[in-house]
């Protein structure tokens, strides 16, 4: 299905159901689709499982979604940061479930979901707490842990620029989880700074082909 260019962020996140699994891009605030997450708060879905590298920074974006009590479970690699006070409080009060996943395994589980891979073995985490309860197998003399895909109902990602086909380019280290999350959800929404005409992006430079993207919305950064 071809991409829909939305007029505003609220239209871009319509239809999210309670209990959905939402992939949210970004590494810290770089690539975090703050305005889409704010729209998701207004949209009102609750009981969400959120997959993101971190568990919110400061009081905006993912942190605001957590503060609004909409998230039942966080799947992330690095929740604890100097400015993750919202998550820290919810966790200590027992009001949120946490699944910690090594960062590369998180990325690969998302990639697997988008690439039709049923499961994979990785050396990461073998012999550690994070492998407990998981099948471990020795392959080529090294212990490997069996990991399953993480598939989202919705992905919210921040990219730099889109064309009207939904092709995306990113900027510097804000790329991070965007390209893998874009492959791994039923509905993929990208917020970008600019939407150019079809043909306005160099086909050689496109990072996320439009086939993965369902909705695009232009968000002008507030200075």
């Amino acid at each position, binding site marked *: 299905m071809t991409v829909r260019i939305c007029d505003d962020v609220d239209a871009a996140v319509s239809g999210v159901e309670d209990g959905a699994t939402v992939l949210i891009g970004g*590494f810290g605030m*770089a690539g975090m689709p703050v305005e889409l997450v704010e729209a998701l708060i207004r949209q009102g879905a609750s009981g969400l499982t959120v997959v993101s590298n971190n568990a919110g920074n400061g009081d905006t974006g993912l942190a605001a979604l957590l503060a609004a009590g909409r998230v039942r479970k966080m799947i992330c690699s690095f929740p*604890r940061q100097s400015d993750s006070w919202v998550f820290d409080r919810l966790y200590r009060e027992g009001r949120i479930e946490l699944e*910690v996943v090594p*960062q590369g395994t*998180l*990325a*690969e589980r998302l990639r697997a979901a988008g690439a039709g891979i049923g499961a994979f073995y990785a*050396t990461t985490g073998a012999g550690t707490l994070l492998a407990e309860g998981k099948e471990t197998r020795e392959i080529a003399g090294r212990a490997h842990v069996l990991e399953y895909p993480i598939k989202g109902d919705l992905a919210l990602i921040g990219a730099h620029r889109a064309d009207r086909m939904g092709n995306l380019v990113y900027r510097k280290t804000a790329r991070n989880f965007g390209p893998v999350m874009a492959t791994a959800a039923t509905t993929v929404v990208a917020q970008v700074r600019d939407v150019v005409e079809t043909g306005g992006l160099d086909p050689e430079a496109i990072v996320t082909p439009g086939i993965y993207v369902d909705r695009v919305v232009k968000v002008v950064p507030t200075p």
Partner: protein
Amino acid sequence: MSTATAPAEHLDRGPLTRDELAARVARDIPRGSYVNLGIGQPTLVADHLPGASGVVLHTENGMLHMGPAARGEQIDPELINAGKTAVTELPGAAYFHQADSFAMMRGGHLDVCVLGAFQVSAAGDLANWHTGAADAIPAVGGAMDLAVGARQIFVMMTLFAKDGTPKLVPECTYPLTGKACVNRVYTDRATFLVGPEGAVVTETFGISFADLAARLDVPLVAGPAA
């Protein structure tokens, strides 16, 4: 002249300072290596790599050939390192997404990774992600991926915790990050090779080999100066 193996004992000085330790680690990074420096103390190593070293720094949030910390006008919130500090790009830099960044790691393409640690065992087990305390919020980031991925893992740490307990131990008591993954341990008091043969001391700083052996619970092998 005897060629018996003995570590280099630097007794005319005290322990290494943080900067001296970073410089010591930097000296052992082969020219032209692809290197990942962990969050915290290991980032200091970058300041001691000579410009001509040809070392390319990898940051796991998706960049190769990362430059020094950004200052003033250079600060760009979309150009950060794994510690979320603003950095710069060097000519020849490349950006890539998270799955590629960690494929690079697990796939054995990085030559060296320098990590901090809570504890390292003589066999090279690493504990650096979680204290295991009941109220601690576990956060692993890329530590486990780095531990199993880079061809060589260097740990950089103080040899003793603030309460004086050794951080080079027979068995880690903190939750493990990776098993038998560390190759070398650089500390303020001594440099060690670790692995299946146990802990080999190659040099000491402000402490003799005998005194060092007396303060650790790990059997030490006196190794040749590296």
